[in-house]
């Protein structure tokens, strides 16, 4: 799966959790999930679970803790998908 496709899927996943929908529409890889998209921090665990389901991967807690931006998530997913 190429980066663009992973990025698009990530936006789909984040859509339901994002308070600032306008920010999501113009999101780029460097956008911070909590600060820029205003996702509630408690919901990050749900975002990770959804990523696991959508991409068929397992994200360890230590890896999840390092995700700050959409790009961080895309990189981890890309790595997992090989």
């Amino acid at each position, binding site marked *: 799966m190429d980066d663009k496709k992973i990025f698009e899927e990530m936006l789909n996943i984040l859509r*339901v*959790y994002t*308070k600032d929908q306008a920010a999501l529409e113009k999101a780029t890889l460097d956008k911070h999930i909590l600060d820029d998209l205003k996702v509630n921090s*408690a*919901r*990050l*665990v*749900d975002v990770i*679970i959804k990523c696991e389901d959508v991409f068929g991967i397992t994200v360890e807690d230590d890896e999840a803790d390092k995700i700050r931006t959409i790009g961080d998530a895309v990189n981890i997913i890309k790595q997992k998908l090989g």
Partner: protein
Amino acid sequence: MNKRVVITGMGVAAPNAHGLNNFEKALREGLSGIRFHPLLAELKFGCQIVGVPEDFETIRKSYFDREKLMSINDNIGYASVSAVDAWRDAGFSMPDADDDTVDWDTGVIAGSGIGGMDTIALSVVPLVNEGRVRRLGSRVVEQVMNSGTSARIGGLIGAGNKVTSNSSACSTGNEAVIDAFWRIRTGLAKRMIAGGSEGASPYIWGGFDAMRVICRKFNENPAAGSRPMSATACGFVPGAGGAMLVLEELETALARGARIYAEIVGGAVNSGGQRMGGSMTAPNPEGVKRCIRDAVNDAAIDLAQIDAINGHLTATYADPIEVRNWAEALERAPDNFPYINSTKSLIGHCLGAAGAIECVASVLQIYRGFLHPSINCEDVHPEIAPYASKIPQSCMEFPELKYLAKAGFGFGDVNSCIVFKKWEEK
């Protein structure tokens, strides 16, 4: 000095109607909300009939966005929809998502009897037992915590006063209203959303089925199953739903020109101590009578002034005892006994939501001046027969209805009684 407390908004999700207009119509028509529930037959329940709000999934989806819906189980759904309806009915609008204002004068008391059992049964237990606890995600705690309903409602309206959830079995909804009434009366809040809710789940009803306290003889004729005060009553019909009332300090209600449904003039809560004939499951008659008298005394009226009773009256062996307790507490003989009806005859016993839904029924009756029929008691129980003429069998116009007493009793031998007064502009 005590503040006067009035009701300025109501919302209801009952088994026989959603919304005040529909609910009033259902009450007037004696419309039963009891239906056959195929899942209970499949699960081999003795009682296969229940009162559950119809098509509520669709209703819930029309109120909340996808993000919120993921954290709204059955119980919280009934509570939240009722709260939104009540808030709007009181003349307020729901704050926008980006509104950062806190309303420090408004609080919430929203109770449940058992609550988020569906989430526990369908998510928590299986995933934990399978060793997949991580898959529970972030949304379980807020749905199973006892304060899940009040927490959700508080966030919806930005409530900054006391936000809590009470629980006192089948007395829960009444007790929430009384606690909110006291909070405003003593000046601690100007406005409270108060009520109760209960999810629709076989995991809630199972325990009652096992106790054989619910109706097992009317699976073929659901609408006839809930039979308070009847000689052929054979246990209560379980129900689900929710209702919320907006209680408000009279001064603020008048200042903003709010429509006033009724005044709450008295309330009492007590326990029979599980002594003197009382137990975990049965009320001590002395406790019940004290509670009724305390409520009437609190209202500062004479016992003789109560015009109507909306009873607890569940359709168990306890109904004749309850009627006797009312008669003794109010010192009224059959010929001057107040009119008495049971909303449970129409909707079943909605447990933690019962008191709240029935308070809405009580307030609608006093506001509109009518008494709804207490259905399925054409064969009045022999011990209640002397009072038969006081039980409306069809809708009765009653414009002179001024004081109505509403009681609720629950497991744990807990009692509650509220006295509503017709609002009369001076």
